[in-house]
């Protein structure tokens, strides 16, 4: 790696550093600044209080957390199954990888609409159930009365859309496991399940950590899928931030909502680092 040390690499890095400073660091501090000001620009806790007293705040917080807690384990299991399939080198393993990766390119909004076609009253789910004779009139799945039913629909849509990202990270992790380890396990009589549990999962720890941190942070921002499937039936933090920034036109309360998302992201990252410590030699 060592080549002439000099100014060259720094010159190459400067543009990206300046850009990240202007568009990441500055807005982040500005967001906290906005959250700690009232609309007139004076520093006070008015905006935060206003957010806390907002009728939808606790609702949005609970729904967002519930979505994260429900979708994450589901995605982990699905992604692991997909990654093991890709890693098993079946016939056409490239094709399997491609199919599993398709949702990676699908936007939140498009994914939401895809599942609207399934769950809408005259949609595919009711049609199939009706054709099978299991129901005699369409069921209202997207009912604003049942928060948990709506949450389930969003969980399914999110599991469909955002599992690929975890799968890709896990496949890369699996490929980095030296084949000798698995062969050794086989020599000692380990079956498939034992190989997964005793060799692959421990070796996958760094990849799992990255996947969990990344996916959790993205899940805290869930927004368009919720709007497509639940309309105003569900409130989430990002949706409230959008509402305050656009229809209500109060950037301070919107920034307070955004700050809540950032704080949740940081706390969850620390929690994962603490739960899944990665040894020095395994570091990313």
């Amino acid at each position, binding site marked *: 790696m060592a080549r002439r040390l000099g100014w060259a690499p720094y010159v190459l890095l400067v*543009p990206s550093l300046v850009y990240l400073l202007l568009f990441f660091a500055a807005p982040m501090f*500005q967001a906290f600044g906005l959250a700690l000001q009232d609309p007139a620009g004076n520093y006070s806790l008015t905006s935060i209080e206003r957010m806390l007293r907002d009728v939808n705040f606790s609702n949005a917080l609970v729904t967002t957390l519930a979505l994260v807690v429900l979708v994450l384990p589901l995605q982990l299991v699905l992604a692991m199954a997909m990654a093991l399939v890709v890693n098993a080198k079946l016939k056409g393993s490239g094709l399997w990888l491609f199919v599993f990766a398709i949702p990676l390119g699908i936007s939140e909004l498009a994914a939401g609409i895809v599942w609207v076609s399934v769950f809408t009253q005259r949609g595919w789910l009711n049609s199939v159930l009706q054709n099978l004779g299991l129901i005699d009139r369409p069921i209202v799945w997207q009912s604003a009365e049942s928060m948990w039913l709506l949450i389930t629909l969003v969980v399914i849509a999110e599991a469909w859309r955002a599992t690929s990202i975890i799968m890709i990270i896990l496949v890369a992790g699996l490929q980095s496991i030296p084949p000798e380890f698995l062969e050794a396990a086989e020599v000692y009589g380990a079956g498939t399940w034992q190989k997964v549990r005793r060799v692959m999962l421990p070796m996958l720890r760094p990849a799992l950590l990255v996947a969990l941190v990344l996916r959790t942070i993205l899940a805290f921002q869930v927004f368009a899928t919720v709007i497509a499937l639940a309309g105003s039936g569900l409130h989430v933090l990002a949706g409230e931030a959008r509402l305050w920034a656009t229809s209500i036109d109060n*950037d301070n309360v919107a920034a307070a909502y*955004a700050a809540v998302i950032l704080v949740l992201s940081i706390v969850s990252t620390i929690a994962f680092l603490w739960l899944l410590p990665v040894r020095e030699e395994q570091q990313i």
Partner: protein
Amino acid sequence: MTAADAPARRRIGRHRALSRGLTYLVATLMALFVLVPIYLITVSAVTPRENAFDYPRQLVPSSISFDTIIFFINASGVQDAFWRSVVVALITLVLALVIGAPAGYALARYAFRGREGYRLTVLSTRAFPIVILAIPLAVTYLRLGINDTVYGVALMHTALALPFTVLITSSVFASVPRELEEAAQTLGCTPLQAFRRVSLPLALPGLAAAAIFTWVISWNDVFAAVILTLRNPTLPAKILSALTQSPIYYQFAAGFVMLLPSIVVIFFIRRYLLGLWGRVVK
């Protein structure tokens, strides 16, 4: 091996075949989970408009028509929004590559003080919530007079895409052997010529994949676009705000139109997918 081993070997063979069969079963189920909804939205989008409210729906459509999709494309504001999305994505792609690729090259080719620090900074910005960037930027844009423009959205999308561009291009350049560049220099090329004539052509397919991925990030963003635009929305922002007042077949066509390019894009960059996201474990 003695004859006594034969049953044991057969048992292992049977076990292998069983676990292979099971793997194919899981693979098929997972593939169906991904593909069936795509099939369903496609059928929904090509169902003739007069059959849009038929119930129960037929899994195999009796007739196909593009009038729903054409209705969507001709709906007011959709084409403008589509072109805005294309322009935003192109600006994002160019900016992210121009700013990010040199950094990726530096990471791949040089050992320097602060290299790990820079890498970790970029890795952590990759996981940064967009929500917190969009709201303060909207305030700043208003002051700068670039609110509700394609440039404002593109600048924000560049920030989103930049960490990816840096990491992807660094893995692309790392895969081009440095020895080739050095050989070119021994043969009398300046470092810049060696880069232009040797590394760049070899890195081109990977860079194209990076560019396409950047394009997808921009094309798919809804949140930033909704916050930063008002009268000049991008396509996803336009669709989102029309969602509640539009007939259901408009939604299906919109979903299908947004989804189609994504599938094509993933197909073209499939060889680079693991490099795009997977370089997390050394």
